[in-house]
């Protein structure tokens, strides 16, 4: 066990708080000065960070590397888009609604169901096989959505009305941002609790040595499945927010490259850490935004940065913050 010098430890704790506060305050400041675009950027960042936090639960804590998690973003977004579409254009009265609670409920339910059903198959295999089979299911969903011309097929669907809630209006960029960023904080806190709970410990054990956990008497499949469903639900919720934010959804959202991006955010930030997914999302999106506004060849420095981080910063960016922090009491 590495024992950290306490002042350094405090510094890192302060650094974390500063980052969290900055995620909330900096966009607000910028928007007050009229740079409303940065508010949108921060909203997108928060939403993708939620998805990354959800993915981290299984990828980081559970060692299940899902390469298909963008599927849940898509499911969540379509759960907003489809009811709104029918509300506007008629048909399918069962779901036609702009009620936000109904839409988010639908997003959560559909994600849970998709995670449960695919999990039954995916969790039977391990390692790279798992990576690929999760991708396969996302791709199937992708092509399914492409084929449904009612919802725009390949071209996607414009969401004409956002989810409606009492008291808050998501049409206001400021409220949209606050809803997203507060959801992010709550979910980060929730996942942190889960990771430290008895369930989280079992998950960690499964990641460390599944055979041993079975021989100890754990039905590991069931624990993995529950984690997989929780993770899917979190991403589905993020998808519902994303649909509301972009007001446009297309199968493109669940393309494997998008799943890859989520994975990279988690790995980049540092797996199995509370701050990792957020740091990864910040880095990914801010760097992408800055570089792409400077040059269309921004993939070059971006790629070099990824390689550099992998080669020289072991354990992701949050290792700079968390090293030596993970202690038992």
């Amino acid at each position, binding site marked *: 066990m590495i024992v950290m010098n306490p002042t350094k430890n405090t510094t890192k704790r302060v650094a974390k708080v500063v980052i969290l506060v900055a995620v909330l305050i*900096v966009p607000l400041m910028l928007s007050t000065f009229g740079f409303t*675009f940065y508010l949108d950027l921060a909203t997108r960042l928060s939403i993708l960070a939620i998805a990354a936090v959800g993915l981290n639960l299984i990828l980081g804590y559970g060692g299940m590397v899902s390469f298909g998690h963008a599927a849940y973003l898509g499911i969540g977004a379509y759960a907003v888009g489809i009811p709104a579409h029918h509300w506007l254009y008629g048909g399918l009265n069962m779901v036609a609604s702009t009620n936000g609670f109904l839409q988010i409920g639908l997003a959560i339910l559909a994600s849970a169901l998709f995670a449960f059903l695919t999990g039954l198959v995916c969790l039977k295999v391990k390692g790279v096989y798992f990576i690929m089979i999760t991708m396969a299911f996302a791709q199937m969903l992708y092509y399914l959505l492409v084929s449904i011309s009612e919802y725009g097929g*390949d071209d996607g669907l*414009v969401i004409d009305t956002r989810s409606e809630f009492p008291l808050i209006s998501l049409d206001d960029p400021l409220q949209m941002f606050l809803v997203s960023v507060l959801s992010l904080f709550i979910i980060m806190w929730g996942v942190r609790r889960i990771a430290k709970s008895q369930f989280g410990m079992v998950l960690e054990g499964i990641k460390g040595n599944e055979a041993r956990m079975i021989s100890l008497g754990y039905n590991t499949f069931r624990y993995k499945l529950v984690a997989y469903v929780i993770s899917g639900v979190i991403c589905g919720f993020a998808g519902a927010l994303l649909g509301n934010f972009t007001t446009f959804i297309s199968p493109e959202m669940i393309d494997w490259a998008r799943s890859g991006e989520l994975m990279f955010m988690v790995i980049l930030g540092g797996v199995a850490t509370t701050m990792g997914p957020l740091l990864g999302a910040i880095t990914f999106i*801010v760097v992408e935004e*800055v570089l792409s506004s400077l040059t269309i060849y921004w993939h070059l420095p971006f790629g070099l940065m990824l390689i550099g981080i992998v080669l020289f910063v072991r354990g992701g960016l949050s290792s700079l913050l968390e090293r030596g922090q993970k202690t038992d009491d």
Partner: protein
Amino acid sequence: MKKLLVSLLGGTLLATSSIAADVKIGFVTTLTTPAAVIGKDMENAVNLAIEHLGGKAGAHDLEVVFGDDGFAPDTGKQVTDRLVKQENVDIVAGYIWSHVLLASRKSVLDAGKILISSNAGPSQMAGKLCNENFFSASWQNDQTPMAMGEVLNKAGVKSLYIMAPNYAAGKDMVAGLERTFTGKVVGKDLTKWGADAQLDFSAELAKAKASGADGIFVFYPGAAAGAFTKQYHQAGLKDSLPLYSVFSIDGISLPKLQAANFSGIVGSKVTQQWDPSLDNAANKKFVSDFKAKFGKYPSFYAAQSYDTINMIAAAVEKVDADMSNMDGLRAALKSADYASVRGSYSYGANNFPVQNFYLREVVVDDNGDWTTQVVDTVLTNHVDPHVGDCKLK
């Protein structure tokens, strides 16, 4: 980290807000992925138009900010948002792809700004989704294949095999052709499109050949055109299954086809509302300067982008750069009162052009370069078929 964040954000602010012009135009096109070959052509044409205008609309400075849609609707919408909200452009133009335009339209129109398509012309935006602030500088998707349908009827083609990519414009093109084509469609393939589009058409071509059709109609814009024509050429279908295409064999693909010497293409026929050989002063200047500067013929994408900028400049001049005068701007744009390289045209109720469509043939020019030449006028002052669905008057 916070410091880093702030300085990074600060960096972008500085990088983007240093120049101030009277009127700022956002131009969204594809600058990455293989489709960037189209975007580059458009960017060149826009820059050429600005150069011809001396960077000014009348007395007012013009500035163009380019945005890359990455060939994906959501990226396109994101970049549109950035242009509208961060760059604070006055007008948004560009858009090669129908699905990108459909995804992005709300961002511009909700902000109460003018949106001009330099290429994409999805049926929805000509019909139900038409908007007083949206103008097309190109055509509605159905029109060009409708012209081709007429050509096929005249040529006595009785049965036809159809291939197109599976996305908004692909479906519109097929629908457009079927509007006018009176023969029988014996087979139809919609192939995978997007960043990982299908480029090996062996299965489809074999089917097409087996179908015994009199001809094959395709729509493969951009990079896919090269792949398709080459495989068509290699499959030796030139005589048994004549090729009729729209938006596929053009200024983008011809130089490449010429470099690889796919001579089977010379003589093939396409329809279009514009051609480098059209005889008007604006077009002559555009084509010769473009050739001199970039060493190749401009594509129709380039021509429409060049028109877009000139059309905006004319309107800006009319309202004296008062971009809050929306009524004035709309009226000026709708008058189409500028020197278009396609010759003069007018606007229909849905703000889509009412214009001629020509039959063009691939020929070898005096310098040995491959280009196209007008051989016939197929449709005159043609109105798109969706105008009836549009609520505008």
